[in-house]
């Protein structure tokens, strides 16, 4: 069930992480605001190298619990902008959770949306996921807007349900079902004959 990689979108190539991505990854992975969305705390180059090692191994979903992580590379200049990941949480109920991180220098250009669209196509199309969800901090307005624009529904708004770095946390859950996701044009464009058959 390995997907065909890399994935090509308008402006991006989504590919596996490589060892040589370390410096570009460090640029955003160490930022305090990113820590909530990273796997563990990564405050310096060594810790990011550890995270990179893990992400380099996240190359397909074979069984629940697996994660697929893809680096977002800008076609123009082959720059690493950020990454997206898909975590397979439950097999029988077809549940997945996704995450996304972008170097703030490059945010506001629709790159995350472009990468997530391709990731959703992969999740719903290739992996037959039934429902995708994401968590985000209640104060993360950029992410909230993005997820809502992509047609995800706010399903949960937890207040003070947990402590995060010693403070009360506010967490939102967004979700979308397979039948609610409008496939990107690339996948929709089957030859007409195909549809009739």
């Amino acid at each position, binding site marked *: 069930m390995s997907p065909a990689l890399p994935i090509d979108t308008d402006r991006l190539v989504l590919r596996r992480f490589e060892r040589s991505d370390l410096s570009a990854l460090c640029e955003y992975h160490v930022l305090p605001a990113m820590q909530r969305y990273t796997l563990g705390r990564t405050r310096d180059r060594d810790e990011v190298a550890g995270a990179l090692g893990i992400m380099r191994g996240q190359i397909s979903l074979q069984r629940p619990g697996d994660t697929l992580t893809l680096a977002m590379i800008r076609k123009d200049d082959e720059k690493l902008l950020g990454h997206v990941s898909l975590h397979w949480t439950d097999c029988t109920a077809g549940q997945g959770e996704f995450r996304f991180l972008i170097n703030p220098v490059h945010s506001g250009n629709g790159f995350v949306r472009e990468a997530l669209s391709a990731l959703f196509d992969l999740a719903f199309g290739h992996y037959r996921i039934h429902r995708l969800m994401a968590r985000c901090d209640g104060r993360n307005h950029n992410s909230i807007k993005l997820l809502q624009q992509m047609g995800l529904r706010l399903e949960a708004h*937890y207040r003070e349900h947990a402590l995060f770095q010693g403070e009360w946390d506010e967490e939102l859950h967004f979700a979308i079902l397979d039948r609610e996701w409008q496939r990107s044009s690339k996948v929709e464009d089957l030859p007409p004959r195909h549809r009739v058959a």
Partner: protein
Amino acid sequence: MALYPNYPLQTERLRLRPFTRGDVDAVFAYRRREDVALYLFDGPLSREECALAVQQRIGQITLEVEGDKVVLGVELASSGALIGEVSLIWRNVDARQGEIGWIFDPAYQGHGYATEAANALLDLGFGPGDMHRIAARCDVRNIASWRLMDRLGMRREAHFREHALFKNQWDEEFVYAILWQEWHSRREASDGG
């Protein structure tokens, strides 16, 4: 904070107290029913299963470590009849999170007993239990249960759709919650303060 309550907990019309071996028949009277089990994790229980459940509940009376659960029988103060049960789980010690639940005999529904008993459990959790937030969850179709959450002053925090399978069908679930400060201001208001 670890919790070793003094039982019974008294309310206006009810007593909340640990289960005893003599409760098996009263528990069987409601846990055997399809309508009661509809949105519960377990299906209708046999008498033997009820005896086992009661046996297990007898020891569930304190909160010492994360995951511990207090399950109390609710009886009418007037007659001593067992009319249902309420539970409080210690979900997270550091973040002081609890979760409540309830099951009542349909013969005694519609009188506000569940509300009264659940309020007593919120008082226990937020008071001596020093909890910060108490949540409850139920199937979206379980109207009686989420109306009860409304009456308790809980807020709807989540509405999950098809996030899991429940009894071979897509599950749709509500999560409600109330914070300590919300509970506190409700109690101040109802004390006429």
